[in-house]
Each structure stands twice: as structure tokens, then as C-alpha cells.
């Protein structure tokens, strides 16, 4: 019994050590980001290493607000994320609802086909989609970033799973009352699936906010950039490196998502788990 207690205690200690080590690993880059954003340029690459700057201040932040119009950029990022999310939630929930709650000819094959489309890697359509966008003159707008992904297979799949758990009675009752199909969707289904919409919406929003490939290809003028893009652009200038500014921009890019995440983390993780486990 004593052995068991000691070994259990030792086991616990080991487990805590592991967890804390992992947590340090996860947090340290973020911490370093914040520290660097408060340093002056020469303190960043300094021997011996400066852990805490002598006079931390917000000069990097004021610089990027003034020179890079970082609030504009944040707004751009937000618009792209929210519009993309809104469109995607609308079309995916509509599609998921149709697959979940209706029976129609070809339903099975159509759904299998939908799942099958997820096999095609983005690399294959990269160039042609770019060419389409070029001919539509949509380059340097947000359209290429929100339209192609609006009705996407993953979202429809997710929503279908989610909506199929709702009982049919409410819809039947509404139909008997003469409500149109779209009204049923909009007035009845949507409120019911709000939690699922939140989860999926969080996944989409995060994807839109953090996206790099799309903005890299399609956004050309700096005033249209998103936060990840502006962060990246701060390395290409020949001249004194701007790691303090870059880290300040990085901090700014993370904070909104961090807040959203801390508030909604349960929903987000539910969404991820649901997408995976039912897959």
C-alpha cells in the first residue's frame, strides 16, 4: 500500500512535470513575442541576451499604427473573416439541412460525391482559380477569399451531421401551417442549430483571420493586406530589421482571436471534435 502511494505520488509528479513542460513550450513563443515587441531594435539581437528590456515601451506599436495603419489592416482582416464566415455558414447550413432533412432522388450519390470532392488537393486548382479570378478582375479584392469557400464540403458535411439530430416534428408542424421551405429554414432551423453554427463559425472565422495563402496570392496593395500579410511584409524591406515592429504587429494579430477563443473555447473544441470523430 505504501509502495502504491509513493509510486502514485511519483507518477503524479511526473505527470505534472510533463504537463507543465508542455505548457511552457506552448506559451514561451508567445511570451517572447510580447517581450520583443517592447524592446528597441538593438536589444533584440544583443549579446548577452536581454530577457527584460531596460525601458520597455510601446514605440513599436505607435510606429505600426502610424506607418502601417495597423487598425485598417485589422479591419481588413476582420471583414474578410466575418464575411467569409457569414457566407459559409449560410450556404453550408442550407446544404446540410437539405441533406439531413429531405429525401430526394440521388441524395446518396450526391452526398458521396460531395465528400469525394474533398480529395482534390488545393494545389491542383491553385493556378486555374487564380486565372479565373484574374479574368473576372477580382484580384486585389476580398472576393477570391470568400466566394470559392462559401459553399464548402466540410461545412455541409458538418451541418448535415448536426442537423440530422433534430427531430422532424417541428418542421412538419410548420409545413402544415403553410410555411414556405426557406422560411422554415430561416425562422425555425437556424435558431435551433445556433450552437452548431457557432462552432462551425468559429472554425471558419479563425481560418479566415489566419489565412495566408489566399491573401498572399490575391491581395496586392498594402492597404488591402491582412494582418498575417503585413507581418510577413515587415521582413522584406532592406534596411534595419524591424523585429520590434513585426512582433508588435504579431501581438495585435493574435489578441482578437485570443479573446474570442477564451470566450468560446468550449464551442470551438466541440466543433473540432465533432468534425473529426464523426468523420
Amino acid at each position, binding site marked *: 500500500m505504501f509502495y502504491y502511494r509513493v509510486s502514485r505520488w511519483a507518477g503524479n509528479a511526473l505527470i505534472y512535470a510533463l504537463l507543465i513542460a508542455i505548457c511552457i513550450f506552448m506559451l514561451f513563443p508567445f511570451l517572447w513575442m510580447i517581450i520583443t515587441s517592447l524592446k528597441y531594435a538593438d536589444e533584440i*539581437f544583443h549579446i548577452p541576451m536581454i530577457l527584460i528590456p531596460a525601458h520597455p515601451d510601446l514605440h513599436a506599436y505607435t510606429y505600426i499604427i502610424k506607418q502601417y495603419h495597423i487598425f485598417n489592416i485589422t479591419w481588413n482582416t476582420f471583414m474578410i473573416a466575418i464575411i467569409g464566415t457569414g457566407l459559409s455558414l449560410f450556404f453550408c447550413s442550407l446544404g446540410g439541412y437539405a441533406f439531413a432533412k429531405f429525401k430526394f432522388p440521388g441524395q446518396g450519390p450526391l452526398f458521396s460525391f460531395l465528400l469525394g470532392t474533398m480529395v482534390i488537393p488545393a494545389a491542383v486548382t491553385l493556378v486555374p482559380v487564380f486565372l479565373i479570378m484574374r479574368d*473576372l*478582375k477580382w484580384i*486585389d479584392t476580398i472576393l477570391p477569399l470568400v466566394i470559392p469557400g*462559401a459553399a464548402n464540403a466540410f461545412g455541409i458535411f458538418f451541418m448535415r451531421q448536426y442537423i440530422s439530430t433534430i427531430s422532424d416534428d417541428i418542421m412538419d408542424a410548420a409545413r402544415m401551417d403553410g410555411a414556405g421551405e426557406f422560411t422554415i429554414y430561416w425562422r425555425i432551423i437556424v435558431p435551433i442549430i445556433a450552437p452548431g453554427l457557432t462552432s462551425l463559425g468559429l472554425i471558419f472565422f479563425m481560418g479566415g483571420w489566419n489565412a495566408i495563402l489566399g491573401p498572399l496570392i490575391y491581395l*496586392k496593395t498594402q492597404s488591402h493586406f491582412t494582418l498575417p500579410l503585413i507581418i510577413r511584409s515587415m521582413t522584406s524591406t532592406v*534596411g*534595419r530589421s524591424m523585429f520590434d515592429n513585426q512582433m508588435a504587429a504579431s501581438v495585435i494579430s493574435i489578441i482578437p482571436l485570443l479573446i474570442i477563443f477564451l470566450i468560446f473555447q468550449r464551442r470551438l473544441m466541440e466543433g473540432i471534435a465533432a468534425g473529426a470523430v464523426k468523420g
Partner: protein
Amino acid sequence: MSRKFLVQFMTILLLSVMLLSACGPGAAPTSATQPPANNATVAPVTQPPAASISGKVTVWCWSASWTNSIVKSGALDAFLAEYPNVQVDYVETAPQDVYQKLPIAISAGTGAPDWACVESSHLAQLVALGGLTDLTAQVTPYIDKMNAYKWPDAMLDGKYYAMPWDSGPVVMYYRRDVFKAAGLASDPDSVSAIVATWDDYLNVCKTILEKTGDQCFASNKANNDARLYEIMLWQQGLGYTNAEGQVTVDSPENVATLEELKKFWDAGLLSDQSAWTDGWYAEFSAGGTAPVATVGPGTPEPAAVKPVATLVEAAWMGVFLKSFVAPGTEGLWGVAQMPAMKAGQPRSSNDGGSNVVIPEQSQNKAAAWALAEWLFGRVDSQVAIFKANDIFPSLEAAYADPVFTEPDPYFDNQNVRSAYVDAVKIIPTGYVYGPNYALMNRYVQTAIAKVATGAASVQAALTEAADAIRNDTGLP
């Protein structure tokens, strides 16, 4: 079907379709998108009066070239005063961004600027891509007034598509204090004499390492940018191709050149800093005073970094040394002739240099050309720009200006400018730049990295690069 359904159906369908095919006619990409007509001329050769030229010229350039040179020199203001109906809209664009965005804008048919700075290294590729205005008529009066070696990159099928701006004659920058500490002569003429060839240079650096522990120059092993190697090729009249267009990356001469560079690594003479990083700047700044703006109050003194003794680079490096690379080391530098590969060969090369192009999309070509001509075709502008930021003019008439005989305090009052002029006059024709430069440079970068890190022998690495280049470009 009920009317109500039909209406709703059509609405939703219409919405969906509209989302996918807004406004533009012809949503299908056409395979034969015609490149802009290459024989549209910009303006009649006879100059129209300045006041009649109007428009907004959108400029893509980078701050070192534009803000710190053109604007600072006052040449831009003089232009705007002379052309009151022209506005200039500057968009800060780093060189790499220009080379990525400009082709995309050109192929997208929209979004290109009216005026873009393009380094000579990437000029031929842009010209070959198409989409630039044919400037033959405009530049004809300047063909024999600019450094001759600048023109081939601007040409395609006998037509000219760019206006040269500056050149990059290569010299050797060296630290007088380091040479002195090593017991060597530190005045420019003596230094030029003792580094007459690359082997001499090798021995001088060995002496410096022995006596002071300082290294010869910086050249990162794993992420080498290949520029020094290209300088060494160019000074011998070599390059990645030859005059017949064959790939020469693995030719015996190219291999021998890389072997020479490898000797420096083998002797432990090279610092491993990547160019344009803080560690790199620190090496140049060592022994000087730190700039105030980048250091916070109360920052502890950094540990001593050993200075690097030399730097073989083009004249435009002087600008950067003074401004942000090593501003605190004023008076400690000198300029000597770069070593020749073999005795008797040219002691000069080219690295960089830039030009300006006017995309065919531009709606303000006349204004854009007027700006280009004003800045780069006039001696007074070029001299002013040179005075502002050491950007070495390609316009040869400018060399007659007295500024090229003035001493420069940063270089301990040496007349470095005449050194640059002497260097530019003996630049041989090189075959480094060309339409496939970016691709070739990337493969050779990898090859040099393999050689420097010991992963491959020089012959093997260069042969691998050459084969890949032949594969990709189809050149023999």
C-alpha cells in the same frame, strides 16, 4: 410549379450565379490573352512642352532608392516644379515584392504602376515576360550616354524597354583600423597593391586573422545569396550562360571560380552571418559608436563583436554603410580596388544597378517617361541623387561633375568617387543577368550552400545545378 416558388427559385439561383460571375464579360480564362501590343509608343519623339503633360504617376520603388535618394536629392521637387500638372504617387514596394507583384499585375491586366524601379538582375526576366512599354524612341538619344553594359538586359528583339538609372561598379571596402592592427598598410593604394589577385587577398586575410582574430568578410554557408560568386564570375567576363546562350554553370572556369571562393571557407576566414541581418550589421558596426535611435535608454553595452575586415561590393554599398549598416564607424573605412582573378584581368565587376520600366497598362505614359528622363537622363538630377545617397549614375556625362573628385569623410577623406568612376570604366561584359537569372541564381545558391557546408564537392554541386537549370529552361 407555383409562382411563388418560381420567383424564389429564380432569385436564389440568380444570386448564386451573380456571385460567381460578377460584372465581367467572358468569365472563362482565355488561353491566348494577347500581350499588350509591343509597338505602342509612349509619346512623339519631339518633346511636348512641360505644362501640357499631365497625369498621376504611380511609382513602385523602395525607400532606399526613392525616399532616401530621389526625394532627398530634390530632383523630384525640381521635376514637379517643371511639370506642374503631374502628380506623383509613391507606393513603397520592396524589390522582391516588385518582382512578384508586377508580373501578376501585368498578367492580371490591372494594378500595375505607371513607373517601377527594377534591379538589373531582374530586368531581363520582366522584359521577356512582356507587358512593358516599348521605350525605344524615347531612349535612343541616351544609348551612347549610358554605360554600355546596361543596355543588353533592357532589350528584346532589338527594342528597348527600360531606362537605366544606376550602376554597381564593385570595389573592395576595407577597415583601415583592422588592417593597421594587423600590421598592414592601410592606405588605399597600398591595400590595392597587396590584394592584386584573389590569392593575394586570401593571404592578406590569413594574416589579418592571425594577427587580430578578425575575419575577412561575411558569407553565410547555408543561405548563401551567391552574389559574391556572381561578382567573381562577372569580372572575368563569365556568367551563368555564355554569348551563345549555353548554360555555363558547370564550365571549368565557373568551377575554378567557386574553388577559389571555397579556399576562404577552408581557411576559416569567413563569418557566417547572413547578409542584411542584425548580426551582419553588428560586424560592420563593431568598433564604432552605436546609433541612438535603435537603442533604448539604459540598454546595457553589448558584448564586443569582432569587426569584419573587408567587403567586396558595389558602389551603392557606401550608401548603406553610412545610413544603417555601420553609421557609427565613420572614418574607419577605405576603398581599394577589388582583386582580379588572375593578374592582368579586370579589377572591377558589376553587382546590381537598377533601371526604370513603364508598364504597358499605364494610362500616364507621357508623364511617366517625363519623370524617368528628368531623373536619369539629366546630369544635374543624377549628380544630385548621387550626392544624396551615393547611387552611382549610369549616365557617363555625370562623371565630369566636380563631386566625383571630392573627399568623403566616412572613408577618412579618401576620394572614393573617382575610385568608383575608375571601376565602372573597366566593367567587362558579363553573362550573369538574363531572362532566367532568378531561377539560375536560386539553383546556384543551393550549390554554393552545399559546397560551403561540405555537403558536396564544387564540381558535383555545380553540375547538379547546371543540369537542373538545363532541365527547367531548356537551354543547352
